[in-house]
């Protein structure tokens, strides 16, 4: 293991985090929120000291950096970034327990949006901003940001591919252009532009600047932290619809936007994952609208709520305009299934990802056919291209790991003696980076009732979900840490 090089990366990431904390500090100073300002300053000192020590100790790193270093480096960065990123909540005493603060921050960075706060409106504005900002940074990924701003010498080497693979969601991550730095810049440019458009649309709906920025960041990262206690429910129908559209947009693979920029409309139109994503969203909305007849006064309102909830759950955002825990069982079942499906690969959303569902189903179909006709040689295709067997193998392994972690976490948090529905939906909501679940963790409730142990399990679930399991699992394998 090249510990020094990893140390340097973590050090740089902490510096990035410190820089991004400054706007929150300025908001605190402007609003004269003394506790929050104190919290931010103390945290900044901690982060800078830690980063300084790391960068100093890890001088003169050798260049050997391989797949395992890349994976370990990504998950370590996320963990350390969260451990230090939650300090403002803790130091300002607005979230008095450290584990609660950590839960809230991990939930932010992993774009989960699960909260332990019974009501958020009492939080200082600067902390609310920081909470929403963690979504934005976590959505596209902090290492991708680092690659976009890194010096040419560090990003020129091929190993940066390992970092992109470990941090970006999807079974088959590839670069958009030959240079990693340019790829990272294009991704962030698209991300920033879409976020700004979102803010403008929200402002046009009469939302205050602060609230629209926070809401837009929560939408962009497909996070789900709102600035009001009832999430998006008390806003006008216009704003709710804007949120629906943008949540949907941020759940699309960013490669599609790049292809649109290049005017390759045909490639986008033919993208099977995008088609499946559209189909699932439209189908679910239709089914829920049929199921919800009579719940809301007008059809229009029913469609609005159904669309909002479906898109919010499918993209793993977790905003809510209605308490879907009160909906009929069929609608709840659909929403629960959508939790697993998740958004597209290469988007900011979490979950199992549409493309993996496609691959798993196609592979299943092939195996069924194989039983009928054992001699037949069959190739799985995606977007008319044959899929490498290695990718299929990885996808199956991912499915296995996914099921295993899901079951283990479910059993472990059941110790707290909540209902089975609560526990299952809590694990689903955290592992798939959604936020709200059903019953005791439903849209109007929160995770504060769980014990410290369960919260730590859920924190690990959120990280595993965001980084797509393997980088986190590698942390727990002995052979990754052994010297070669």
């Amino acid at each position, binding site marked *: 293991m090249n510990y020094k090089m990893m140390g340097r990366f973590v050090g740089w990431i902490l510096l990035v985090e410190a820089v991004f904390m400054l706007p929150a500090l300025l908001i605190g100073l402007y609003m004269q929120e003394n506790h929050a300002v104190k919290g931010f300053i103390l945290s900044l000192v901690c982060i800078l000291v830690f980063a300084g020590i790391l960068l100093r100790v890890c001088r003169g790193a050798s260049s050997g950096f391989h797949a395992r270093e890349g994976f370990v480096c990504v998950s370590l960065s996320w963990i350390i970034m969260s451990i230090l990123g939650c300090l403002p909540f803790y130091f300002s005493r607005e979230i008095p327990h450290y584990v609660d603060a950590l839960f809230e921050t991990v939930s932010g960075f992993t774009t989960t949006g699960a909260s332990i706060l019974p009501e958020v409106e009492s939080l200082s504005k600067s902390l609310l901003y920081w909470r929403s900002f963690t979504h934005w940074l976590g959505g596209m990924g902090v290492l991708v940001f680092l690659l976009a701003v890194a010096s040419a010498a560090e990003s*020129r*080497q*091929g190993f*940066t*591919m390992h970092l992109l693979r470990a941090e970006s969601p999807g079974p088959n991550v590839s670069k958009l252009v030959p240079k990693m730095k340019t790829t990272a810049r294009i991704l962030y440019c698209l991300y920033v532009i879409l976020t700004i458009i979102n803010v403008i649309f929200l402002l046009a709906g009469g939302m205050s600047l602060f609230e629209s920025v926070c809401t837009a960041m929560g939408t962009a990262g497909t996070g789900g932290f709102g600035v009001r206690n009832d999430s998006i429910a008390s806003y006008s129908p216009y704003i709710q619809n804007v949120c629906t559209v943008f949540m949907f947009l941020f759940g699309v693979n960013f490669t599609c936007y790049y292809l649109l920029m290049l005017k390759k409309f045909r490639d986008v139109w033919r993208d099977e994952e995008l088609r499946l994503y559209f189909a699932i969203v439209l189908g679910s909305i239709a089914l829920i609208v049929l199921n919800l007849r009579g719940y809301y006064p007008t059809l229009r309102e029913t469609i609005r709520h159904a669309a909002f909830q479906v898109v919010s759950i499918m993209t793993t955002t977790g905003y809510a305009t209605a308490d879907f825990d009160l909906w009929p069982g069929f609608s709840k079942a659909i929403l629960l299934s959508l939790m697993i499906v998740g958004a597209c690969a290469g988007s900011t959303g979490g979950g199992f990802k549409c493309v993996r569902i496609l691959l798993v189903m196609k592979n299943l179909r092939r195996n069924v056919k194989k039983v009928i006709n054992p001699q037949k040689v069959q190739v799985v295709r995606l977007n008319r291209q044959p899929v490498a067997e290695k990718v299929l193998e990885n996808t199956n392994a991912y499915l296995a790991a996914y099921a295993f972690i899901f079951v283990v976490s479910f059993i472990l948090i059941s110790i707290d003696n909540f209902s089975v529905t609560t526990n299952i939906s809590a694990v689903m909501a955290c592992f798939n980076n959604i936020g709200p679940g059903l019953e005791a963790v439903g849209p109007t409730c929160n995770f504060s009732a769980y014990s410290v142990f369960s919260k730590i399990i859920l924190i690990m679930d959120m990280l595993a979900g965001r980084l797509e399991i393997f980088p986190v699992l590698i942390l727990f394998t002995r052979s990754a840490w052994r010297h070669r």
Partner: protein
Amino acid sequence: MKIIIAGDGKVGATLVRQLSAEEYDLTLIDVNVNRLESSSERFDIMAVQGNCASMEVLKQAGVEEADLLIAATSADEINLLCCMTAHGLNPRLHTIARIRNPEYSGQIYMMRHIFALSLTVNPERQAAVEIERLLKYPGFLKRDTFAKGKVELVELKIVGDSRLCNVALNDINNVVKCQILICVVVREGKAVAPDGNFVLREGDHIFVTASSDNLTKLLKNLGIITHKVKRVIICGGGTVSFYLALCLQKSGITVQIIEKDRKRCEFLAALLPSASIIEGDASDEHLLESEGISSCDALVTLTGLDELNMIISLYGNQCGVPQIITKLGRMTNNGILDNLELGSTISPKELCSNTIVRYVRAVKNQTGAALTVHSIADGQAEALEFLVDDSTLHCNEPLKSVGIKKNVIIACITRGFSQELPNGDSSFKKGDIVIIVTSGQVIYQMNDIFE
């Protein structure tokens, strides 16, 4: 600049290494996924899998926006088809094709015209020319020429009883009694740009620039015997051997080629009437003895296997062959080879990729580009040749008042027919040819050397 490299073989991989260090946008095409994966994990490049002559694959690699295409797959015909297709898709594109089949060598110029190629490269031919030069000028491990052959850069290894051993560079001209400049020293596998107090030790490899006359003097004063090569044994009857035998035949040198394959022997015998072609295994000591290895003037090992070449060369050294040249296809001179007595080593892929890199740089900056580029010391340093023109800064100023970047050495200034090894009082004048040796820095044009 966007560059597409088709073929991730030996030349392709060397090119990727050299070009990715210079921050071009590289896209690599190959049919083999595993090769592509290992390349894309080591370098910041985009990999496209497929047949490089297919339009679909070329489009996927972004040929429409590319500036340069280098076709270096193992088949000449695919290279040509690839360049032709790419040129059809993007007429602005510069194309470089590797063409190495000797049967095409006579029609290169016509093919360049028909296929609109900017450059063709032939690694085997280049290697043969290089070997011939080494044979004509023995004593050096490597030899590169600049300023149309007037200035040379040679690699020498310091042996224990050499007069250069334990000499500080300040005193070097008193010891060798001629004008030379040591620009790079490779010690324990690391290249350093030495200063005046640097003391040479046994085992160092030194890169010396001097004019051709001074080199002859250097050899004489160092006691390195130069003798005329009259009989050469070549092991392996590949393409390099063919080109080499052709060159040597012309200069009246007796050539013996040992080749295992009967068909190939017959083919060579038909094309090379004055060479003696021997069918047999070159690793067989008895065969080498019976062909008179102990009395030949030079042994050149050119089989397809690096290991075999090394073993035969070591055996030749044991037999006391005065000059040995070893071809290495895969490894280049890294640390392990240093302790072996392999004589000069030659690597066709490096020669070929040097040529291409030079062309790439010339495309990048139309004016002020290097006239020649030689990668030396296992790619750790580079020797470049520049022409001083109107755009060059600091003309006519003494060098001591001009800030020159660290790790850049001005090795030689050629003015008309005279060569000057520069000191603090030297200056550049328009029309000069300047040779610059740099380690660890990429120099694209002359003005890059100034602070």
